[in-house]
């Protein structure tokens, strides 16, 4: 499988009044054509920042892509000129966001907002746009698409708005869809519908999908491969089956344990003790060590590098690495 996207050593820094923060540090991964890769982690793990960085959408200031390379279809995103970058944005790589209530402009009609993408990337005229918008809305399962197109975001429910966002993202048949927590803000019943929709459209158009989520249920249903992030770094990677059946990093194990309680009736809520460390006060050594039950003295001294404990299974954990060797 050839890679659509290759990210190498990506680092994103934020300058704040309290100092510089490494929101993403040394992140590398690849996404193959038509593949769905999930980026998983708690709030503050840097997964959304990483996603925004892929399209250079980090607000500068205060943020900055400090290092790394982002190769998309062989072109380095970080080296593109403004106009070239704008062709990729919305044209070759599309993005949908967590909160469809906020992600649509409240003062313009649905038709206008989807039509904008068609005008910009496909050069469509007014009438062609109007027709295509209705087609796209029908495709994503919006009932009465012709009427909906003339309406404003506030006339639509959350689920419908997320469908509109998806229609907007698909307007130019992108090669890669970045979905940042696409179901988090939606009702549980609507979540499954939206995931199914993304899944079916992905197959239909042969898109690759980068799915950013903290919901392991979503991951199990949709992703081929999983990247687990903690405090701005990748700590583990594997196929979905590998991660779920044989998690190696204590953090991944904790995440899965915490997710399990939903399935067992009457079980106590399991959680990982402690919280993600403040970016201003990173512990020495492994960032997870203060919360880790298995931590060794050396975990508190130096940062464990990513080492393959099995083919295609990089893990950044001394304990896991020792067990494997």
């Amino acid at each position, binding site marked *: 499988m050839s890679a659509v996207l290759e990210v190498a050593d990506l680092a994103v820094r934020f300058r704040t009044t309290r100092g510089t923060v490494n929101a993403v540090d040394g992140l590398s991964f690849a996404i193959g054509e038509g593949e769905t890769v999930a980026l998983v982690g708690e709030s503050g793990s840097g997964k959304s920042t990483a996603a925004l960085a892929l399209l250079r*959408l980090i607000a500068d200031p205060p943020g900055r892509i400090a290092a790394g390379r982002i190769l998309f279809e062989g072109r380095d995103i970080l080296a593109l000129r403004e106009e070239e970058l704008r062709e990729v*944005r*919305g044209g070759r790589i599309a993005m949908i966001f967590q909160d469809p209530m906020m*992600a649509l402009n*409240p*003062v*313009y009609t649905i038709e206008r907002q989807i039509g904008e993408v068609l005008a910009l990337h496909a050069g469509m005229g007014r009438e062609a746009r109007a027709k295509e918008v209705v087609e796209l809305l029908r495709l994503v399962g919006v009932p009465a698409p012709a009427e909906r197109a003339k309406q404003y975001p506030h006339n639509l429910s959350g689920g419908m708005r997320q469908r509109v966002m998806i229609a*907007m993202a698909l307007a130019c048949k992108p090669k890669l869809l970045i979905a940042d927590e696409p179901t988090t803000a939606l009702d549980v019943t609507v979540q499954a519908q939206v995931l199914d929709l993304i899944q079916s459209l992905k197959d239909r158009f042969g898109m690759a999908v980068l799915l950013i989520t903290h919901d392991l249920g979503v991951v199990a249903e949709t992703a081929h491969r999983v990247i687990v992030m903690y405090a701005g770094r990748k700590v583990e990677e594997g196929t979905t089956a590998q991660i779920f059946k044989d998690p190696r990093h204590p953090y991944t194990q904790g995440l899965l344990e915490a997710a399990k309680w939903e399935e067992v009736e009457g079980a106590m809520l399991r959680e990982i003790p402690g919280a993600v460390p403040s970016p201003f006060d990173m512990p020495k050594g492994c960032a997870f060590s203060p919360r880790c039950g298995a931590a060794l003295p050396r975990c508190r001294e130096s940062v464990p590098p990513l080492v393959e404990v099995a083919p295609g299974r990089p893990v950044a954990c001394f304990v896991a690495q020792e067990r494997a060797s």
Partner: protein
Amino acid sequence: MRGGTVRFVLRRLAQLVPVVLAIAALNFALAKLAPGDAADILAGQMGHATLEFTEQLRREFGLDLPILEQFLAYMGRTARLDLGISLIQQQPVAELIADRLPATLLLMVTALVLAIATGVALGVAAARRQGTWVDNLISVSALLVYATPAFWLGLMLIVFFSIRLDLLPSGGMMRIGVAQTALGQVLDVARHLILPAATLGLFYAAVYARLMRASMLEVYGLDFITTARAKGLSEGTIAWTHALRNALLPVVTLAGMQVGHLLGGSVLIETVFGWPGLGRLVFDALVQRDLNLLLGILFVSSIVVVLVNLAVDLVYGFLDPRITHK
């Protein structure tokens, strides 16, 4: 939708009647609080008036009646839109105002349009370059203009543009007998309008620039701006379409609220530039205790202000589809 808007306007207009009458009552009380009346002033002007003559004048003007009776008579007239006769000038107040109001409205509207256009443009420019020298220059200039008294600014503009450069007329509204054609007349008035409108508008332009900048920065932090960038739109398109329309609401609100303020400011500016509007009339009415004239001007001003506020509410609905007029 459209039928709803018409009903909204009609209902709002009906609601304005008690508001305007309440303002009229307040105006009456305020005017009566000032010491002295028109009879004193007129008698004083004559130099050798007797007390009897003053009393006679007072009877003629109806100023000798108990205050409640005066008030009821005034409210009765006002409710019938009868503004009465000027005590001093002995002409119908409505005519005096009708002569002067267009000039004041022209000055006000021009200043307001100028202020909003300049303020919005500068505010957007500053917000797009937040933290750069452009932003700093605009913000500091706005503060400077904001802190400058308008009458002084007007005098300085006259000194510079009229006296030094001899580019623009220093006062008045037109040069008699110069313009032969209608277009020539319009251009002549426009030339006379530039300095007073700029003087009056600059203060507001500074206010709107600062407000617009803050409002734009707030909108820039919202998710749909990131969506717009992710679509591949240019920064220009994002600023002038997606951000601008969302950021305009606070400016429109403030502009609506400031119309009364603007009317007051134009009175002062008219005096500096000899602009033949309501300004001179207000001044005379105040000094001469011309109760009818003063109350008439205040009444018409209050109608202008409430109508502009109604217009602002209609603009809201146009800018933001979430606001419906029910």
